[in-house]
């Protein structure tokens, strides 16, 4: 993976020194909160309900074992012994003290990490397919392009005061695991008729209070033109994006208001002034970054493993885990292993310092020292030999990371909600936990099959509820927590937004409501249909009728 060069390292170190000075001036009362707030946010430090929260960037969701171990150290030394992996492949620490924040940033810098551009109206951490570089269906590793975007966008002077925040996601595979259609810019790598690899450029997608599926403004962009084209999009947005109303300031509103054709025209026009200029990527620069993402040397390992087959037959839980949590790897004899952070005992996405350290150990032992963070709030060992799985699985079991529920009903995405977040209207985590507790039988979970529940505690939609097969949005109704349900959302290559099924339900009815919807699906489904397939075939009406008849 990418290693900092001298420039990167000295830049990050300088920022730590600068922030240390800013914090000491704030603590001494020399800076007011109004003066200090933009400075701390630039360094990823928010003030939430109970404490400061530090959001640390995990570029394109890739971590080394050494980095994960350092995150564990930070959790233990500066927080309450745990961290929270987010829906944007980052990690948040919820109990950071202001006077210790510079020490935390220094600890991050030691392992080539930082919290820059995890807040504010800038280009945020670029996210990628969490199976990047290893997925069997992949055309090219999207992290190469994420890293190029990272270097271009980090403290880009022209784009430091955008109308609003800006999120880019990249997938190198036809099966979109990075939700590229609900980002400000989504990039999908594919081959054109000539067999060349380039990008489909999708703009103006997003969730939040105005969910919109992104529109394609260019079907094929040659790779060397990526930065000049992105710069053209950002320029058009920077110039024409609205600054009069925070709720209408994202690029999706601009695209919606002027139309995709006009957006495309303005971008192309701007691009003509930029293309083939200083932003054109020379082949050797691409080559240099590509080398940083060179796959590890995979020793040959067997594709058929008798010990694995024996355990599969002997232990149903292992068989289930293989089915849902081990994905096909592009190298025969290897698998991509999802470690579930959705056991239900703690919040979705939470990992203790002990778990992080143990995962770092397992990554070193079984996975070339690499770990991925998924936007679905799980961790991944991207290169596990199939022959090692009978040893890896029991180790995960001891750590409580073995739940065989990847992409199943209990693999719930949830934002921190009113338990932590200053913006939330209702709690998310307890709702997720109650649903997980209701569906705690693995046999039943697997019988239901793929079903993505996504929960947000407010309209800002950090829990991606609009693209949940079942989406749940917490609302405040006269001081009581209620939950609005949407059905049929999906974040894949065939992305759709969910439809509201009817009036919001009270907190004590939400688990029953989910159970009711699942029951309707099980009654109606045809051979081989997932929840989403059945919903798309039959529509809202039957689900609605049965849900509210029961109320």
């Amino acid at each position, binding site marked *: 993976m990418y290693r900092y060069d001298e420039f990167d390292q000295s830049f990050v170190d300088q920022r730590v020194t600068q922030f240390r000075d800013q914090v000491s001036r704030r603590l001494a009362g020399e800076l007011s*909160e109004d003066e200090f707030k933009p400075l701390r946010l630039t360094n990823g430090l928010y003030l939430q*309900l109970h404490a400061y929260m530090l959001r640390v960037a995990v570029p394109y969701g890739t971590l080394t074992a050494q980095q994960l171990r350092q995150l564990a150290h930070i959790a233990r030394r500066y927080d309450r012994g745990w961290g929270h992996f987010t829906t944007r492949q980052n990690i948040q620490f919820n109990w950071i003290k202001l006077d210790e924040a510079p020490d935390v940033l220094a600890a991050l810098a030691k392992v080539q990490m930082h919290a820059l551009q995890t807040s504010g109206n800038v280009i945020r951490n670029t996210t990628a397919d969490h199976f990047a570089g290893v997925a069997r269906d992949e055309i090219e590793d999207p992290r190469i392009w994420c890293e190029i975007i990272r270097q271009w966008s980090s403290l880009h002077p022209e784009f430091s005061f955008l109308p609003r925040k800006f999120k880019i996601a990249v997938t190198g595979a036809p099966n979109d695991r990075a939700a590229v259609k609900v980002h400000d810019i989504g990039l999908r790598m594919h081959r054109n008729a000539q067999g060349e690899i380039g990008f489909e450029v999708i703009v103006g997608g997003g969730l939040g209070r105005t969910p919109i599926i992104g529109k394609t403004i260019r079907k094929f962009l040659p790779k060397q033109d990526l930065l000049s084209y992105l710069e053209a999009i950002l320029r058009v947005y920077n110039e024409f994006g609205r600054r009069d109303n925070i709720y209408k300031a994202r690029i999706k509103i601009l695209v919606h208001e002027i139309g995709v054709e006009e957006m495309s025209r303005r971008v192309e026009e701007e691009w003509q002034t930029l293309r083939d200029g200083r932003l054109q990527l020379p082949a050797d620069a691409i080559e240099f970054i590509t080398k940083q993402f060179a796959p590890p040397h995979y020793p040959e390992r067997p594709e058929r493993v008798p010990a694995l087959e024996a355990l599969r037959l002997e232990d149903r839980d292992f068989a289930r885990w293989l089915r849902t949590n081990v994905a096909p790897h592009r190298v025969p004899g290897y698998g991509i292993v999802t470690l579930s952070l959705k056991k239900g005992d*703690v919040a979705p996405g939470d990992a203790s310092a002990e778990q992080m350290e143990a995962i770092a150990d397992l990554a070193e032992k079984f996975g070339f020292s690499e770990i991925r963070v998924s936007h679905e709030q799980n961790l991944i060992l991207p290169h596990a030999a199939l022959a090692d799985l009978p040893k890896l699985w029991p180790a995960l079991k001891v750590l409580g990371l073995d739940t065989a529920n990847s992409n199943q009903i209990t693999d719930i995405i949830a934002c921190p909600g009113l338990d*932590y977040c200053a913006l939330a209207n209702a*709690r998310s*985590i307890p709702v997720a936990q109650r649903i997980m507790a209701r569906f705690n039988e693995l046999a039943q979970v697997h019988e239901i099959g793929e079903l993505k529940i996504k929960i947000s505690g407010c309209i800002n939609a950090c829990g991606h509820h609009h693209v949940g097969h079942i989406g749940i949005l917490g609302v405040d109704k006269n001081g009581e927590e209620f939950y609005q349900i949407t059905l049929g959302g999906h974040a894949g290559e065939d992305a759709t937004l969910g439809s509201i099924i009817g009036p919001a339900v009270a907190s004590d009815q939400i688990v029953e409501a989910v159970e009711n919807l699942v029951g309707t699906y099980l009654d109606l489904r045809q051979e081989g249909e997932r929840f989403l397939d059945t919903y798309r075939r039959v529509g809202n009406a039957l689900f609605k009728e049965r849900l509210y008849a029961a109320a």
Partner: protein
Amino acid sequence: MSAPVQKSKEKVALQAVTGNRLRDGAVIFRTRAGAWSTQLVDTETASNEIAAAQLLAAAEQDAKNAIVVGPYLFAVSDQSGELQAVTLRERIRAAGPTVIEAGIAAVQHI
């Protein structure tokens, strides 16, 4: 952090002032002694708008003095004999998250 809108329909009789401690972000309440406490029970309350404005003005001075961040008024009730925040948000702020944190027991207050 901006002050939340009070959602309670009923006229709020009692108000208190809260904010976050500058040094560590902890939720704190302005006490009768003019200091700040992490315990709601010690909080000074105001039963009319004039008293509330005075309480907030004093807290804002503490914000200028780098003690507290973003002080604001919120509704409290002493009807149960014990001082309590009225809204769920403020009850959670006062008592902590309602969920288990990796090994730390949840506070059963909601």
